[in-house]
């Protein structure tokens, strides 16, 4: 095992972690702030990637304009889940699964070859023909076009925007929707609409992250979002476990999510370096999230057991 090889893998892990960190901030908004487990994200990250790649390669769009549209497409997906949940009364998890399933067909439509009309699961960007905002091929360079610089900037901007938004009157109201729906309604807050808005914002960010990811890796794939929610949760939980005691401020909590995603990808690189293959990663991710989600519960149970003994 060559340690230099591992070190060489780290910049890539940071780049990927920063991109998935944006997505994980989206997950944080639904999972932690709104208290909804939104499974739409698996579909939304692919939709964001597909929309961006098609706009760039087929229509020759500027990558940033393409990412803006991808953000909008994500918001639309969030709107669908939100309406299914809030208006139609479908449980949030199921609403997300339905949207995500439908998105698969929509992604294939978006990706359909305009000439042959054949459906394509995968479209790559010819980097010599089309400009992209960031590319993994530059991740080992020290130049300014190293995607890590751009992603740092984007991450700071997203965190700053979210910090501002959730500090506004409307943002505070959204936080109340997640914290205590009954209280929110008693204070005149439309909780149904609030959930829809939160889901839209979250999925907008996820799609934006998907658009960044597709450029970074040089292609979009209709499968690229499979298991994304679990990676997002892993980032949220790793960030909380490691930085939870340190970071109290809301902005820092979001930063912890992004750092959680980076740590997640570093760990992934390490286990790959240790000899696991990419085929094993989904299993590993599921295990990590299962363990971290169960730790607080088991800890509580053990503490309660001890308390009972102490009283006896």
């Amino acid at each position, binding site marked *: 095992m060559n340690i230099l090889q591992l070190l060489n893998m780290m910049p890539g892990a940071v780049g990927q972690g920063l991109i998935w960190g944006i997505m994980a901030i989206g997950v944080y908004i639904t999972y932690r702030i709104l208290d909804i487990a939104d499974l739409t994200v698996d579909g939304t990250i692919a939709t964001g990637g597909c929309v961006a790649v098609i706009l760039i390669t087929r229509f020759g769009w500027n990558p940033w304009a393409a990412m803006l549209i991808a953000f909008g497409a994500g918001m639309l997906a969030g709107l669908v889940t939100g309406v299914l949940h809030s208006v139609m009364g479908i449980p949030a998890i199921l609403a997300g699964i339905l949207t995500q399933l439908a998105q698969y067909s929509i992604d294939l439509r978006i990706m359909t070859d305009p000439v042959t009309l054949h459906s394509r699961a995968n479209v790559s960007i010819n980097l010599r023909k089309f400009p992209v905002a960031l590319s993994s091929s530059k991740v080992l360079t020290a130049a300014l076009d190293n995607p890590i610089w751009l992603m740092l900037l984007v991450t700071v901007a997203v965190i700053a925007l979210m910090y501002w938004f959730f500090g506004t*009157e409307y943002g*505070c109201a959204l936080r109340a929707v997640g914290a205590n729906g*009954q209280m929110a309604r*008693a*204070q005149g807050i439309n909780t149904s609409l609030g959930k829809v808005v939160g889901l839209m914002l979250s999925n907008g960010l996820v799609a934006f992250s998907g658009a960044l990811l597709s450029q970074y890796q040089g292609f979009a794939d209709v499968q690229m979002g499979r298991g994304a929610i679990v990676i997002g949760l892993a980032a949220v939980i790793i960030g909380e476990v490691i930085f939870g005691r340190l970071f109290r401020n809301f902005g820092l909590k979001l930063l912890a999510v992004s750092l959680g995603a980076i740590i997640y990808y570093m760990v992934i690189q390490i286990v790959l370096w240790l000899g696991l293959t990419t085929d094993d990663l989904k299993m590993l991710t599921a295990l990590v999230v299962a363990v971290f989600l169960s730790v607080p519960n088991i800890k509580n149970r053990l503490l309660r057991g001890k308390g009972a003994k102490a009283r006896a």
Partner: protein
Amino acid sequence: MLEIEHVFKTFNPGTITEKRALTDISLHLAPGDFVTVIGGNGAGKSTMLNAVAGTFPVDGGSIRIAGKDVTRLPEYRRAALLGRVFQDPMTGTAATMNLEENMALALRRGQRRTLRWGIGASERARYREALSTLELGLEDRMSSKVGLLSGGQRQALTLLMATLKKPELLLLDEHTAALDPKTAEKVLNLTQKLITEQGLTALMVTHNMRDALALGNRTIMMHEGRIILDLDAETKKKMTVEDLLARFGRISGKTLDNDRMLLA
């Protein structure tokens, strides 16, 4: 201030758990009225309050608050007119948000929420002053999460939040029932103080008959979804808990089936 006209409500109609909760309820409150509501378990006291608050749509009849027909308005729209305190101290506040954030949410009750900053620069002094009137030391804990407060503190805060922006009608749903007797008394005193100072119109459900007679200028008794007794201020003054129980027995043909109430 409040006009309830012939309101009906049946839960789970057509099923085995069908429950007629409100039967032809009519009640008028004049501005400044402080009405206490008593009755046994399942009498419809909380259901009546929730019908006013809009927790569920009613089957028939109409509800007007401050002259405004709210019968078809959703709960969050009626909130502009109402201040509410619930039985469970956890219900009225957001545990994961801090005191001043909770109060800022309450101050904006019924207003459009904009993209202005959530707590205005000048508001903190106002919250501090309001909290200091509670004499619980909460004015020094404005940036603490509400989840760290005790049940009594949270209930006092909820009461303060319900009246921070003067409501047309204050709804108190057994708001001291979950508190220990000493804390309950404190919260009750605070309730009376706020209602008197601000001249509020209030509807208070209580299981404590002595409180029901001692507080407010009118008492109504409910039984099986109906209002069976309506006492004005004069009659109330002369009444004892024993008189009230006797009246209940005469009208309903039953003894009051609420253990909590008999003990009070």
